[in-house]
């Protein structure tokens, strides 16, 4: 994982946070804050999809801020992979797709995994 990525969240179809991983030492949000943030983002993703002025409704894919960048990849099954990274990082979409591929291989195919 490149040093310029900060955090990964995986949110399930209902909006609950199922996985968090921090890659940098700074700004470690506590667990409650992460849960709240992920659920709020889930709702905002849905509302932004409803507000579309043209084209097919789709949720938030990227958020650009001054000190970070957020990329979200939503799978057809409703799982969201959200990555917070530094603003100059590109190609996060591909990275999130690879993470999805790893998730489907190691998590979903694990017979002991209960979703």
């Amino acid at each position: 994982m490149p040093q310029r990525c900060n955090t990964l969240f995986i949110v399930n179809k209902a909006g609950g946070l199922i996985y968090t991983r921090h890659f940098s030492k700074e700004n470690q949000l506590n667990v409650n804050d992460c849960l709240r943030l992920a659920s709020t983002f889930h709702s905002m993703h849905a509302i932004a999809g409803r507000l579309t002025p043209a084209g097919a409704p789709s949720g938030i894919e990227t958020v650009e801020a001054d000190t970070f960048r957020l990329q979200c990849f939503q799978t057809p099954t409703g799982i969201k992979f959200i990555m917070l990274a530094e603003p100059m990082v590109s190609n996060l979409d591909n990275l999130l797709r690879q993470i999805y591929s790893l998730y489907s291989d190691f998590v979903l195919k694990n017979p002991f995994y209960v979703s």
Partner: protein
Amino acid sequence: EKMIYCFYLFDRNGVCLYYEDWNRSKKLMGEAEEQKLIFGLLFSLKASVAQMRPNAGENKPAIEALHCYSTSSYKLHYFETPTGLRFLLLTDPGVPSLRECLRQVYSHIYVEYVVKNPIQPMGQPITC
């Protein structure tokens, strides 16, 4: 082909002072409901963004945090003034950041023609 869809101007109380649209092909709900929804979305998004910032960004003002967000069908550019005025622009996703453009709209159009207009009441939709 680069497209611009709509423009919103909200004051700090959530009153939509100005709305304009061009080339808009989808209107999924009434105008008032949509304005409330978009104001609410940006209010929450701004708060979440302020919380997600890395520690280095803590001392910077929260209004400078959110620049824009994109979906696969549109991109929303956001500019907020220190007085709480929110300028929003919805465009095609391929457009680079139009924040500077919104800043120009504020300083050259809003300040010149609205703020300096003695008969324009503050906090109400702009009619001039």
